[in-house]
């Protein structure tokens, strides 16, 4: 499953990326969104994009278009 299908406030773990560009992959990895990290979708910003996520112990605003490309599993 991918992160876009996960409801808010449900903790999951990142498995990997599917179809992300190298630029986006490196950026996300640099920010801490790496395989093995726990993620919780917290809320959608008022225009529903980006989405605020708790990644490890930090909060990230992630563009909604990236969520279907982040593979996750139940934590």
């Amino acid at each position, binding site marked *: 499953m991918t992160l876009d299908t996960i409801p808010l406030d449900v*903790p999951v773990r990142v498995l990997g990326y599917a179809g992300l560009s190298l*630029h*986006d992959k*490196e*950026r*996300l*990895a*640099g*920010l*801490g*969104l*790496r395989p093995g990290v726990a993620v919780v979708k*917290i*809320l*959608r*910003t*008022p*225009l*529903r*994009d*980006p989405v*605020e996520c*708790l990644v*490890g*112990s*930090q*909060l*990230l*605003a*992630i*563009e909604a*278009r*990236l969520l279907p490309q982040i593979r996750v599993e139940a934590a």
Partner: protein
Amino acid sequence: MNRVIALAGRPNTGKTSLFNALTGLRQRTANFAGCTVEKASGTMRASSGEIEIVDLPGTFSMLPQTEDEHVSFRFLSECAGSGDDLLVLCVAEASNLENDLILPAGLKAAGYPVALAVNMIDESRLNGIKLDAAELSGRLMMPVALVSARTGEGLLKLDALLAHGVLRADLSDAMDFRCATKKRLHELQDGAVERASAASSASVTWPHRAVLPTVARSIRIDRMLLHPVAGPVILVATMFLLFQALFIGARPIMEFLSGALGALANSLRALLPGGALASLLCDGAIPGISAVIVFVPQIAILFAMIGSLEQSGYLPRAGAMVDRALRPFGLDGRVFIPFLSGFACAIPGVLAARTIASEKRRIVTILLTPLMTCSARIPVYTLLITAFVPATFRPMGFNGQGVVMAGMYAFGVVMALLLALVLKFTSFNEIHPSPATVLPPYRVPSARELTRYVWVRCWHFLSRAGQVIFIVSLILWALAVFPRDAARLAPIEAELAAVRAGSAPDTGLERAVLGRLAAARIEGSALGRAGRLIEPAFRPLGWDWRVSVASLSALAAREVFVGTLGTIYALGGESNASEGLIAALREARNPDGTERYGLATAVSLLIFFAIALQCISTIVTVRRETGSWEIPALQFAFLFGLAYALAFAGYRLTLAFLG
């Protein structure tokens, strides 16, 4: 041989706070060699002599992507090749070690001498995190200090650690990042992630909570501040307050400074014998200083507010809220603050664009920020709207003049968005450079840090843009004063002498003659002659030579337009909303008795002033921020051409439809 400590780390780890704590006020700013990224450096006094501290731009990983990140790695490689003593002091946030340890672990593996400052130790204590510094030091094989740059905790230990021989000159094993392959960087990053994770697991005891208290608090606040309904309302209210503070807070100080410098000029004029020296000081140098200093209160208030929002953690969230709406125009949430600042003055707006990591996006922001309606346009708009929009004009019951003023603000924003859309199809376009943004925990801003933040930016403006603005003001003074057309001035001067010598002095008459004398001086000066010369070029916009000269002089600053017109119309004073000037413009007639200016001229002027980059200070600031004259020259020429074309269209359409 220099002794250099380079501060490196991810953004929001408190790197700059630590830099300030280590260097005090012994700081200077310059650009890194060969680029426009700003370099903050300072000195630290150690028992072994002075050490240069360089605050490197924030770096997320060993895989540089933005211009800022490339600059950091390039600087380290250059240092390694220079033979200087070097230490990389990596700064990590104590509550986010699993991410922040990657950079020090990677740099260590790349052969650099690294020490680690684990910052915000006070916050991690509140989060219930326990850190074993000795274990961390052993795992990473580098000296470690636990500090809080905000409270000063642990700084003495860090000073001692830095002062005693951890700098190293032999960097022959250090990797040259300038020629490192992507594969090698990936290997470094992967290895660093493993070591960072192992070191973090071994040395950090996490609390038995799912979420850290500071993060949990931030989530609670975000549920309110990013609420679908309340979020935008709070954002608009915050921006409204910022505007109010800018206009209400800065105006009295600006008026005081302007008045004090005006009084100084008048006192000097009374003391000095009339002539070129008095004019140079009173009409050139002091107004030149005034043109620089009056901007400082606005810049200080704006950056105090931006600094507070930035330190509190709200700014990245505000950017995230508008991000989606700006994407169709090829922009993103990071342009929000520069654009917002541009409503006060384009200069802080252009400076605020530094927070944009992507170079192309930063340039686009700098190009478009001057289209926001800055406070310098307000006197011009007020004059033209009051003079030419009838007070009886009440669309849907609203005050028509107010509606037109609001429309001018909207016009600037719409033009900026349309131009952004055009730039999206040029080489300036860049796919969203930051698909994810860190939202730091909410924190109470520190007064000390805020003061330093504001001071650095004000000083930067005064010391850099200020010098050039001052010099340009002097040049404009010379153009407005020389050459003196003695034949034209002699009869007016004789008339003035006669009025003054009269038995019953008539101050009203004297002021009128003085006004005519000033007008004659300008008309005969190089600036006046230039106005006559350019008049045919602006005639299609409905402008005569007077408006052309005023527009030319407004190159120094837009509001000068009002003063110059006032002088030309022999009114002497430079009141922004002078009823006398408004009446003079309304009643001005051509020799054949027809109206000199009408609504069509006002429309063309309003459009022209809304778009044209008539501000030497902004042009100079753009030059400083982009590192060359190419961008400001392009910006000036393009906006001037566009302003001319649209002003012409506006003039013709108004004539066609309204007569």
